[in-house]
């Protein structure tokens, strides 16, 4: 079995402009394109920053980030987005369209896919994420759990092979967390690689094949299961 590295970080250092010390102090990591990797650590350890670095949202002050072999700093966000999906903590920040259906369809349409093809894929995603009864609804009128499912569906409909989730369990109650865990489990079985960033240790490590713990901007522990 070959373990394909999807994201390769070499000696990544990053400091926010108005802070005194770097939040990441020289990280070396290879993240596999399959399996669920958990990134845990206390608040302020740099988890979210590292996640953003992996999606090319932030560029390292020094060191390099490679996505599928290519230097992330030479790729546009659009190009990265075709390979790596990113789920922000707040679903409200990533809902754009006037209806649930359009939310799933508009990117494919802009990229030139055929209408029948789009309709088919949208139908599949709606069923899969239990959103069919909401297809004509205004996305912002959905509950938080429904919004999160919608965003997840809208990212996955573009078939990225890797997904980064930033604190996906925030404000989710026990039932919604269980649903999310199931969705992630299904994705794992389909071969979609994932990185889950969470301060909810129990949730993140439950189905993880690898747990990376960050502390003070450095890798404190790295365990494979």
């Amino acid at each position, binding site marked *: 079995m070959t373990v394909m590295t999807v994201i390769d970080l070499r000696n990544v250092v990053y400091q926010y402009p108005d802070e005194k010390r770097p939040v990441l102090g020289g990280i070396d990591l290879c993240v596999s394109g399959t399996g669920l990797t958990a990134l845990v650590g*206390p*608040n302020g350890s740099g988890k979210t920053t590292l996640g953003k670095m992996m999606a090319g949202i932030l560029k390292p002050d020094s060191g390099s980030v490679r996505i599928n072999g290519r230097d992330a700093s030479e790729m546009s966000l659009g190009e990265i987005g075709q390979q790596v999906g990113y789920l922000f903590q707040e679903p409200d920040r990533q809902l754009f369209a006037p209806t649930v259906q359009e939310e799933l369809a508009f990117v494919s349409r802009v990229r030139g896919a055929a209408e029948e093809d789009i309709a088919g894929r949208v139908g599949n995603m709606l069923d899969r994420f239990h959103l069919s009864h909401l297809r004509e609804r205004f996305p912002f009128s959905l*509950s*938080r*759990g429904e919004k999160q499912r919608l965003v997840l569906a809208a990212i996955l409909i573009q078939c990225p092979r890797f997904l980064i989730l930033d604190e996906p369990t*925030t*404000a*989710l*109650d*026990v*039932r*919604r*967390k*269980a*649903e999310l865990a*199931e969705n992630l489990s299904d994705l794992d079985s389909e071969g979609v690689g994932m990185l889950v960033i969470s*301060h909810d240790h129990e949730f993140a490590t439950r189905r993880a094949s690898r747990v990376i713990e960050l502390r003070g901007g450095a890798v404190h522990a790295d365990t494979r299961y």
Partner: protein
Amino acid sequence: MSALLCVRDLSYSFPGKDSPLFSGVNLTVGAGEVVGIVGLSGSGKTTLCHCLSGIIPLIRTGDMQGVVRVMDRSTRDLTPARIATRLGIVFQNPDTQLFFPRVEDEVAFGPENLCLAPEEIDRRITAALKTVGMEGFRHRNPHRLSGGEKQMIALASVLSLDPRVLIFDEALSQLDAAGRKRILDLIGDLKRDGRAIVMVEHNPDNLVVAGQMMLLHEGTMSKFDGQWQRFAAL
């Protein structure tokens, strides 16, 4: 000793909806009592908080039936300003409760609105910050503080009006473990100080300080039996 917060047969329906979000809610909270209400997302917890605090029907609309009495006055007979000196509510998101560049200004806001004398306002700021243990933060910018610290300031800015009843509407859900502990310790202090407190959360672990636990589920409120994991089963 009469209850500071008394709810009789409360029900609420969203405007235009026939079926109620919840109904038949009864609650009594006396001085020095903490009641915890737990419920899943969408169960109506925040709407319940709005009804308890008078936001419904005074600021938000909808069909509210039944009576909510805060210190013996029905919320329907009061104005938000009159309620403010009896009941204070802390919300989930600190960033939409804090809007001034200095902690002191934030805590002064309520008393200023109620036309208290400057000396009295000053005294209340000192007292409120002392209660939450943030005296040293008086001149700091609230937006630079951690989540837990921000919620303490939000609480202080409500305490400066000296309400006997306090409602916490999922006030802990955006905080980390350290932040939650601080607020819970503080709620313990406020309880010993004789205030009536209602806390609403979607995670029962956040309600350790509650003397009574209620469950809001599928439209009714009942005693919570402590079995929370059954909701995780799909």
